[in-house]
């Protein structure tokens, strides 16, 4: 749910006057802030011992606490606090040694108590930042706050008739809400921010980062202002964007919508809008939502959360290498281009795979090309991810050594790789089994070259007449005739000799 705290202020600035838009600097600038909710990977819920496991039968993970029965008391889960602190430290926030929980009051059928336990004043962490990689550089995006709260139940709407069904298995699952400063200016920046944040959460192993299943959710506050104006315009809040692509699409749509309104001299209404991915539009929820008046007050059932500095330091010491650090190391230690470093560190598992390959075959750029090219291409059709890649680092390294020793050509390597992926077999075995050994014997290649030249007298004449480009054609024909096994360098040499010699 959205909340009213820490919002981009727009009261009193009114709508920017479109005539005041300085045409020279090009119209309007978007101001975007994101609120991200991440489900923490604890085993039990935030305030009770019910399981957080996904996919259980409805209402089988519910107890008096998460059903909101009268007289129960919440007891905070230590691991939820630890995970939230990890994220706070990884995003350079100041961790509050004393923070308080608050009740956020509203009525909705998925909220059994009539309030959500959240944090409002004095959240767990404030004032951090994230460095996001962008084409041609990067950008530092501020984080306003990170706080702990409980998730609501799940409403199922697919029943016929004027009813909804409620499953409270998710009620009380721990969430952190991460609120950015309004520092983002384009949908691309918002996408990059979200990817970087997701990557950090997954590296920390505190959230599985799955947007489609709702373990990571994103709402966006969007406003426009004439370029060069410091004051913010009136914003709208866009919800229900359940993929990276949808966040970018929804922001593009919302920016275009607001720009059109402003250019026509209209004013933006502060409202919540729902993104409809199927239709590619956002729809106003105006009239369907109560004014945001949550009457927050300190949760009387929970004492202030007090942390020991020593414990926070301990958590800090346990942080793994984070995506930004790994990227920098991949550039420095392996001499990779920043783009390669970014792709290879997009997940910890992929980075580990790459590093294991390099350990066995210490030519980082060669390994990078294979991992970014062939490995990632094969993975696209495979839901299981790199952990389940049938080609192990050992096999890939061995295949690369077969290339170096001249046993197989680059072209044959592609075939070997595909076969390794299909069968999971060792490259040497595949080479032997399929007779893929590169032919570097002039006595075997010579006749194949001769046959190709005889079959294409017209091309031979054209080549000799000065059309050098035909060499590639001849090489291709010879490779085809030898099922790709001929040593391409040797084929080149023999072809040149025969073509020149006549």
């Amino acid at each position, binding site marked *: 749910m959205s909340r009213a705290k820490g919002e981009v202020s727009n009261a009193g600035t009114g709508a920017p006057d479109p005539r005041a838009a300085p045409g020279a600097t090009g119209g309007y600038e978007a101001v975007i802030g994101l609120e991200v909710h991440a489900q923490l990977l*604890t*085993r*039990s819920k935030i305030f*009770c*011992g*019910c*399981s957080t496991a996904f996919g259980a*039968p*409805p*209402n*089988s*993970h*519910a*107890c*008096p606490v998460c*059903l909101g029965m009268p007289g129960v008391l919440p*007891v*905070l*889960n*230590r*691991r*939820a*606090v630890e995970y939230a602190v990890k994220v706070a430290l990884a995003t350079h926030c100041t961790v509050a040694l004393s923070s*308080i929980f608050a009740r956020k*009051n509203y*009525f*909705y*059928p998925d909220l059994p108590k009539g309030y959500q336990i959240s944090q409002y004043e*004095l959240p767990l962490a404030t004032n951090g930042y994230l460095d996001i990689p962008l084409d041609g550089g990067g950008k530092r995006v501020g984080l306003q706050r990170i706080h702990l709260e409980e998730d609501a139940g799940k*409403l*199922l*709407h697919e*029943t016929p*008739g*004027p*009813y*909804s*069904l*409620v*499953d*409270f298995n998710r009620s009380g699952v721990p969430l952190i809400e991460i609120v950015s400063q309004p520092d983002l200016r384009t949908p691309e920046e918002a996408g990059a921010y979200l990817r970087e944040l997701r990557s950090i959460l997954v590296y920390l192993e505190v959230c599985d980062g799955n947007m489609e299943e709702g373990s990571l959710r994103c709402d966006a506050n969007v406003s426009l202002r004439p370029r060069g104006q410091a004051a913010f315009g009136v914003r709208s809040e866009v919800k229900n964007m359940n993929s990276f692509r949808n966040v970018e699409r929804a922001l593009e749509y919302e920016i275009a919508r607001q720009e059109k309104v402003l250019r026509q001299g209209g004013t933006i209404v502060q409202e919540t809008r729902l993104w409809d991915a199927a239709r590619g539009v956002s729809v106003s929820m105006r009239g*369907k939502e*109560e004014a945001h*008046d949550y*009457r927050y007050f*300190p949760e*009387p059932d*929970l*004492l*202030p*959360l*007090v942390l020991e500095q020593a414990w926070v330091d301990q958590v800090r010491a346990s942080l793994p290498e984070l995506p930004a650090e790994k990227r920098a190391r991949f550039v420095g230690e392996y001499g990779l281009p920043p783009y390669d470093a970014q792709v290879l560190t997009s997940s910890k598992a992929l980075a580990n795979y790459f590093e294991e390959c390099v350990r066995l075959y210490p030519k980082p750029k060669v390994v990078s090309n294979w991992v970014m090219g062939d490995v990632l291409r094969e993975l696209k059709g495979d839901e299981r991810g790199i952990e389940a890649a049938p080609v192990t680092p050992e096999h890939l390294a061995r295949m690369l050594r077969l290339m170096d020793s001249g046993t197989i050509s680059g072209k044959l390597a592609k075939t070997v790789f595909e076969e390794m992926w299909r069968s999971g077999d060792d490259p040497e075995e595949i080479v032997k089994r399929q007779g893929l050994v590169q032919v570097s014997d002039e006595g075997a290649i010579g006749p194949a070259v001769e046959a190709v030249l005889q079959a294409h007298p017209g091309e031979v004449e054209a080549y000799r007449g000065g059309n050098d480009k035909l060499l590639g054609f001849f090489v291709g024909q010879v490779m085809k005739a030898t099922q790709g096994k001929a040593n391409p360098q040797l084929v080149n040499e023999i072809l040149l000799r025969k073509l020149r010699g006549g």
Partner: protein
Amino acid sequence: MKITRAEVEHVATLARLALTEAEAEAFTAQLDQILTYMEKLNELDTRGIEPTAHAVTIAPVLREDEVRPSLPPAAALSNAPAREAECFKVPRVIE
């Protein structure tokens, strides 16, 4: 006046309370008295005193992250005014 009739009605709406004319009148007067009384607290000089969120100042005991048995679904649903497919059945809230 510390509170207006309109504010009382607004809070009643947020709390899903239907007040009669007489009740709205009576509560406005009572809440006004309570708020006036609370104003007394503002007479205290609280400069340099940490704001308190709770009456006790001990650190809370945290729970270890261990799963404990939940209620059987039938028990969880036993107070539901209506149910279907092991779920609580409620009036549709959207569309």
